[in-house]
């Protein structure tokens, strides 16, 4: 899997340097960090697109990579990218907080980052099986729809429930993080199972 991870990393970093700069800039802007985390989780789609363009998949299926490994690598790439950006975002928030320039409490901001990364990974998990089934080119509109919908919903939720201190949080809010974590784990598991199935079914 390390070979595939390295391949995706090299391809993405060489092709999308501007994208990385944008992610960093978004991470610096208070309230925009969510977007950079989502961009991170979208990077596997970019890797998919370059794979499709070079028809790498045809060669990979002759190499010592099982369909399961191919699928797991793409998820792992997404986890690493979204995870990496989240860590960066967390560090930036801490620095803002230490400098007295942060918005809201640090704990709330960390919670927002955690929820954002889980939601971003869930968006990725919704998209992955579709890509493995019909390819990145055909699934482009679906990908855009899912990503934008979830990002807008999150932005709307956080701006009302977290940053507006006048809003009274519901009683269940303390269970929200563990709840989202459980839902995320279930979605990831189901998505991976479905992707492995679609990737295996591609063999005709």
């Amino acid at each position, binding site marked *: 899997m390390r070979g595939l991870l*390295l391949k995706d990393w*090299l391809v993405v970093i060489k092709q999308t340097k501007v994208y990385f700069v944008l992610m960093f800039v978004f991470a610096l802007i208070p309230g925009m960090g969510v977007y950079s985390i989502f961009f991170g989780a979208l990077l596997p789609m970019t890797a998919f697109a370059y794979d499709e363009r070079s028809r790498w998949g045809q060669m990979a299926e002759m190499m010592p990579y099982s369909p399961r490994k191919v699928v797991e690598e793409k998820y792992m790439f997404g986890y690493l990218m979204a995870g990496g950006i989240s860590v960066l975002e967390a560090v930036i928030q801490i620095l803002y907080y230490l400098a007295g320039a942060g918005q809201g409490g640090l704990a709330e901001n960390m919670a927002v980052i955690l929820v954002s990364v889980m939601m971003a990974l869930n968006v990725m998990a919704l998209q992955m099986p579709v890509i493995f089934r019909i390819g990145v080119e055909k699934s482009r509109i679906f990908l855009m729809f899912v990503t934008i919908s979830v990002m807008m919903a999150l932005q709307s939720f956080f701006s009302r429930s977290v940053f507006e201190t006048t809003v009274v949080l519901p009683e269940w809010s303390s269970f929200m993080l563990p709840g989202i974590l459980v839902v995320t784990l279930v979605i990831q598991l189901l998505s991976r199972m479905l992707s492995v199935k679609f990737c295996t079914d591609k*063999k005709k």
Partner: protein
Amino acid sequence: MNAIEMKHVSKTYGSFAIKDLNLTLPEGCILGLVGENGAGKSTTIGLLMHAVLKEAGEIKVLGVDNTSKEFQDVREDVGIVLDEAYFPEVLNGRDVNKIMKYTYKNWEEETFFRYLTQFGIERQKMFKEYSKGMKMKLAIAVALSHRARLLILDEATSGLDPIVRDEILDIFNEFTREENHSVLISSHIVSDLEKICDYVAFLHQGTLVLHEEKDRLQETYGILRLGRKEAEDIPKEAIAGVRDNGYYKEMLVKRRLLPGNYTIERAGIEEIILYLARGEQI
């Protein structure tokens, strides 16, 4: 042991079908898989590597059933060159080395860079800047750098100029000097195969028309030219293919079915295949 063993393998794609394919490649030998475009050569290679699922039959590669879990390890021992090298265009030779180092357990960096130097490939040059020949050479360098025991080459020499083709064929030949090394090479450039193959298999519209040792093929078949009237005396079972030139007939004949008084010329592999493919229409 056979490096490749396909028994009664079938696969259908709409109107195209591979029918009851039986193919073996003894260890230490080179098998040339010949066939026109769309004859099923790439499908056969896909079937071998379990990239295409068979409908019936049995396939063993290096002694292992290709549907078994153990086949995943066998892939380590198979060097593959497809009709095109499908590396992402922004990668260069150095990147490919790094990726393959984590892909194949037996990856040999020194061997890879030695081949790059031998093939005149700049390590820093991006894949998109390569010529077709260079792309194929990179793929060949990869296939030869992880201590493979079996090379599977799908149209690996097509699109290359004759000098490069010759150079690459020499490398494949050298590869089989080790007795447990085998090569399956598919091509429609029969002259390439004639140079290096021990066995020739001819796939025509999904059916294996012949699978024979190259030398035996040339012992079996020969070319006979006779006037149209004299040609009528040749028993039909001895004729594998006929070309009517108006004044005389040129026939691919089975030597052992004809009396010794005929002057039968040596047939090239390409001629044999053309006659067998097109029979009397040629």
